């Protein structure tokens, strides 16, 4: 036997050898019995071997890099905790943005983990199956890192203590929860397009990039660290999302209308969920990075524009109502923050009226809308506060059947009038906040006629009682601590003590 010195294999060859030929054909069960979810959505795949992995990351390299990310991340988190990093935040109001993030978004990381585990089992192609399994592990890692951050802040601040319990019950958390429930109860291909493409590729940049940059700017090392560590996986997820869509469109022309419908649906659903982030950026970061409008222009209009131009060769169009969403970017954060201000008694984070300086920043960033429509609203409430009549909305709001957000959004082109859309299905009336949500309802009325709408559930007697107090206790909110205004909250009191101590030391 002679030894032949061989050149080291290149990455592409190495990757092919390590990832291909691992699958097998079932012999004593039919393929459709092994992959029961593969066909009912109507997607046609002729040749799974045409799948191209965007990143050539083998499992050994995956473990190596993930381990290094984890070592770095936990060193920083530990150091943040050891050095009382919470005292170095720009202002205590900042912590409310993180309450919303950790109670609203972190549980979605877990949902994404479950969803990709399911897809990783049920997609018949070996390439995407391996990629989905990696993503499933990533998502589990993300939620773990976020729980570590939450655990630290929970030692000092209110509103974190029952994040899992609240995620399944609280009215505004039903918005992100129902988004993922919707995706996870769809078939594996729709889930892949919903989360892998529409959410990861088109929209998560808006969540993780400017917002995490905001965390960096506001002294929140703990969040920046998990945020950017997660985002390093996100780039891999994004490329997986784009590969999925190209693969489906290349496999069969009949896939196009199905995929287009999913892209339209999940773009709109994602846009609605991200309204929470719009409000975090424009109102909840004490030191601002960029406005929601600016972030939308960079990450949707510019980046999404190039992407959809690239996908046009398959006949895929820019998501329906992208123009409406772009126009809404001038209103979204203001309409959402106004909603939380008036329902502050029922939220597990604090609210406040923007200061005069913040209002000037908003005028500058939103020259066509803020002074005309939203500044007067805050001025009215400021007058009411001054008279000792802080405005609380004491009735429950009408909710959209699809996005589950209170129906606060206005008619396109008419910011003075709420948009009401209704559908009839089997003798029942259903209300939606927009043409985007109504189209989604009309596409699958059977699904959305089962929506668990928090307001209706309260009326049906399923939420602990009829009074606001009963319901909030059922949510496990600590009344007077978790909810109401920032001014006068235990969080604020603690912060003031820290700052006073700092003053004394500075002499």
């Amino acid at each position, binding site marked *: 036997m002679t030894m032949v010195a061989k050149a080291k294999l290149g*990455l592409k060859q190495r990757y092919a050898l390590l990832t291909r030929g691992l699958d097998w054909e079932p012999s004593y069960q039919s393929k459709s019995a092994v992959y029961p979810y593969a066909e009912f959505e109507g997607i046609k795949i002729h040749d799974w071997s045409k799948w191209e992995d965007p990143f*050539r990351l083998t499992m050994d390299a995956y473990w190596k*890099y993930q381990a*290094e990310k984890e070592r770095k991340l936990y060193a920083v988190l530990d150091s943040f905790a050891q050095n009382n990093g919470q005292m170095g935040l720009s202002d205590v109001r900042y912590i409310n943005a993180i309450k919303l993030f950790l109670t609203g978004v972190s549980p979605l990381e877990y949902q994404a983990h479950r969803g990709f585990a399911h897809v990783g089992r049920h997609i018949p192609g070996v390439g995407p199956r391996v990629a989905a399994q990696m993503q499933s592990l990533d998502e589990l890692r993300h939620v773990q890192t976020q729980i570590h951050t939450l655990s630290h802040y929970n030692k000092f601040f209110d509103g974190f203590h029952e994040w899992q319990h609240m995620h399944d019950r609280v009215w505004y958390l039903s918005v992100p929860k129902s988004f993922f429930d919707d995706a996870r109860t769809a078939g594996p291909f729709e889930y892949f397009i919903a989360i892998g493409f529409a959410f990861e590729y088109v929209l998560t940049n808006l969540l993780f990039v400017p917002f995490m940059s905001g965390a960096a700017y506001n002294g929140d090392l703990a969040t920046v660290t998990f945020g950017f560590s997660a985002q*390093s996986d996100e780039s891999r997820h*994004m490329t997986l999302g784009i590969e999925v869509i190209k693969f489906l469109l290349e496999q069969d022309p009949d896939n196009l209308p199905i995929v287009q419908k999913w892209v339209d649906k999940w773009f709109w659903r994602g846009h609605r969920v991200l309204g929470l982030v719009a409000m975090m950026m424009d109102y909840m970061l004490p030191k601002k990075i960029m406005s929601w409008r600016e972030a939308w222009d960079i990450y949707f209009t510019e980046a999404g524009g190039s992407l959809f131009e690239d996908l046009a060769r398959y006949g895929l169009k820019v998501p329906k109502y992208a123009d409406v969403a772009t126009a809404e970017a001038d209103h979204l954060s203001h309409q959402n923050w106004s909603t939380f201000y008036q329902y502050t008694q029922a939220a597990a984070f604090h609210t406040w009226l923007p200061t005069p300086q913040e209002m000037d920043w908003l005028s500058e960033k939103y020259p066509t809308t803020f002074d005309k429509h939203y500044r007067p609203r805050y001025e009215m409430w400021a007058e009411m506060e001054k008279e000792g009549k802080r405005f609380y909305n004491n009735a429950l709001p009408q909710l959209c059947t699809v996005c589950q957000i209170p129906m606060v959004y206005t008619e396109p082109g008419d910011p003075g009038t709420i948009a009401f859309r209704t559908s009839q299905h089997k003798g029942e009336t259903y209300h939606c906040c927009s043409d985007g949500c109504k189209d989604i309802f009309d596409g699958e009325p059977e699904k959305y006629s089962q929506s668990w709408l928090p307001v209706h559930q309260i009326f049906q007697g399923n939420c602990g009682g009829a009074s606001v107090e009963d319901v909030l206790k059922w949510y496990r909110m600590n009344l007077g601590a978790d909810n109401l205004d920032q001014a006068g909250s235990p969080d604020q009191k603690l912060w003031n003590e820290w700052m006073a101590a700092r003053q004394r030391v500075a002499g």
Partner: protein
Amino acid sequence: MPRIVSITLQNTDAARPIIEAITEDNPGAVVHSFPGIVKIDREGSLTVHRASVESRIGRDWDPQELHLSIVSMAGNVDEDDDYFGLAWAH
């Protein structure tokens, strides 16, 4: 509309030589700095060369180490032993 490819990296000690290599090797690349991150945009395509990064850090560098510093990107990925590329062309 110009078809911009983009890469966003953390603004860290590990990423700075990569950022430097990209800006030097890709004429016309535009660098935007935000707190904690650096976003580099370029029309059409953008490439990170292994040799260019190695010459800056004085050790072997695997383009897959980008996974440790990357925050986001836009464009189709092409990855090999000696480079990591993003492009909208196909």
